[in-house]
């Protein structure tokens, strides 16, 4: 049996849920699939309060956002979602296959497909980087914030971007010590407010420092770090042994772009956005008619921008289906403005630079 929703959304994180909300509100028969146990994507482990504008739930803890996004549509008969359902393929005739609970194959032939698959974690090269006890930062968050299991007793955090800083703080909240946060760049990459919280807890942030080695046979029993020079090379004589029983990698994410490739969307390698991303227009439509992108799958950014992109994709898909969402043009402009506000200033430099490489010209604006 082939399911034929008007809109199929792959991924139920901030982008996918926002897309669903707009599509369902506009009256589209919408199905959302996600491979996790719960909706919300990475929001389910974000215990910190969000920044930004009220429209993206500033001041609300990330874990509370999925239910807010779902609230308006959860009882709508046009909306259904399937959990523990992994998208496994995209075929030339527009059919998406998915595996439900590891044993049932489902087929979908939607009119519009929104891909909001999110991202996966990067790793970096060092000796023994495959040893048990070397974890992605997101994995550590899942283990402790969703399932209440400690990753270890003493961690070493690699990376002082927002994720590295936030997860270090969350480790302390969970009663786990953090020996240090090391960062190869000359300065902290994350927001100062997060860095200050770490500093107040007495966790040293070591910039211009890298990890050389995870020590241990069967699992992490320590680590060696060293200072780096201007060319990011370890400086001999600065090596230091760190006592830790796990190492947490917060060294960036890359977009999960497999399905765009399968669908032969035009792709670009954009380092500023974390890897290969689909070329898209202002409505979040890819180079393949009927396929839209939203959130980290289209470039690594933040949950706030993912929610706006999702809304834009859901709205555009609904409009293309002839559903004429209420006040379409105004809402669309408002969303686009919100996005540019989020991306303005020096913090958004790399995002703007990245997007310039994979955005199509808007006919209406030229």
């Amino acid at each position, binding site marked *: 049996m082939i399911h034929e929703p008007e809109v199929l959304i792959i991924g139920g994180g901030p982008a996918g849920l926002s897309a669903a909300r707009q599509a369902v509100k506009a009256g589209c028969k919408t199905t959302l699939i996600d*491979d996790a*146990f719960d909706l919300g994507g990475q929001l389910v482990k974000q215990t910190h309060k969000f920044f930004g504008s009220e429209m993206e739930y500033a001041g609300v803890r990330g874990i509370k956002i999925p239910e807010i996004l779902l609230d308006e549509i959860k009882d709508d008969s046009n909306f259904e979602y399937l959990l523990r359902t992994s998208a496994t393929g995209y075929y030339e005739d527009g059919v998406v296959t998915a595996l439900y609970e590891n044993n049932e194959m489902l087929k979908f032939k939607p009119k519009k497909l929104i891909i909001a698959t999110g991202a996966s974690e990067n790793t970096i090269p060092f000796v023994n980087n495959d040893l048990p006890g070397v974890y992605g930062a997101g994995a550590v968050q899942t*283990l402790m*914030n969703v399932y209440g299991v400690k990753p270890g007793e003493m961690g070493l955090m690699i990376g002082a971007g927002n994720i590295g800083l936030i997860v270090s703080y969350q480790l302390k909240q969970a009663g786990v010590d953090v020996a240090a946060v090391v960062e190869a760049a000359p300065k902290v990459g994350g927001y100062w407010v997060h860095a200050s919280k770490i500093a107040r807890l007495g966790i040293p942030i070591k910039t211009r420092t890298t990890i050389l080695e995870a020590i241990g046979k069967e*699992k992490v029993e320590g680590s060696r770090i060293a200072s780096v020079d201007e060319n990011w090379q370890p400086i001999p004589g600065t090596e230091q042994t760190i006592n830790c029983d796990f190492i947490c990698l917060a060294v960036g994410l890359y977009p*999960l772009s497999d399905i765009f490739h399968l669908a032969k969307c035009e792709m670009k390698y954009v380092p500023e956005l974390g890897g290969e991303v689909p070329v898209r227009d202002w409505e979040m439509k890819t180079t393949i008619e009927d396929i839209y992108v939203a959130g980290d799958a289209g470039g690594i950014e933040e949950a706030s921008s993912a929610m706006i992109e999702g809304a834009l994709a859901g709205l555009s898909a609904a409009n293309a289906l002839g559903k004429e969402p209420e006040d379409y043009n105004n809402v669309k402009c408002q969303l686009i403005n919100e996005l540019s506000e989020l991306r303005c200033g020096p913090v958004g430099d790399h995002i703007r630079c990245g997007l310039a490489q994979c955005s199509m010209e808007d006919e209406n604006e030229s």
Partner: protein
Amino acid sequence: MRIEKHPILDFKRGKKVEFQFEDRTLTGFEGEPIAAALHDHGIMVLKNSLRHDRPRGFFCAIGHCSSCLMEVDGCPNVRVCVEPLKAGMVVRRQQGKGVLR
């Protein structure tokens, strides 16, 4: 290594169940990923790599990295970071690529 007290979170845990790991009987909470239950008991090595036989453990927690493939109830290559624990499950470190029965 459970977190018992947390300033923000209340953990909604399923009922306590027993399961088998190799020749041991362990407990965990129903519905949590098998990997979380194993981790609670300090079991970090979930499999060994195919070519160089190096120990591998929990890494991504989203079913993407293949570092946690184990044999569960006789079925090989189960991603235990995204497979819910059920009472009576038999969990083993699989040999190589595992065997389909």
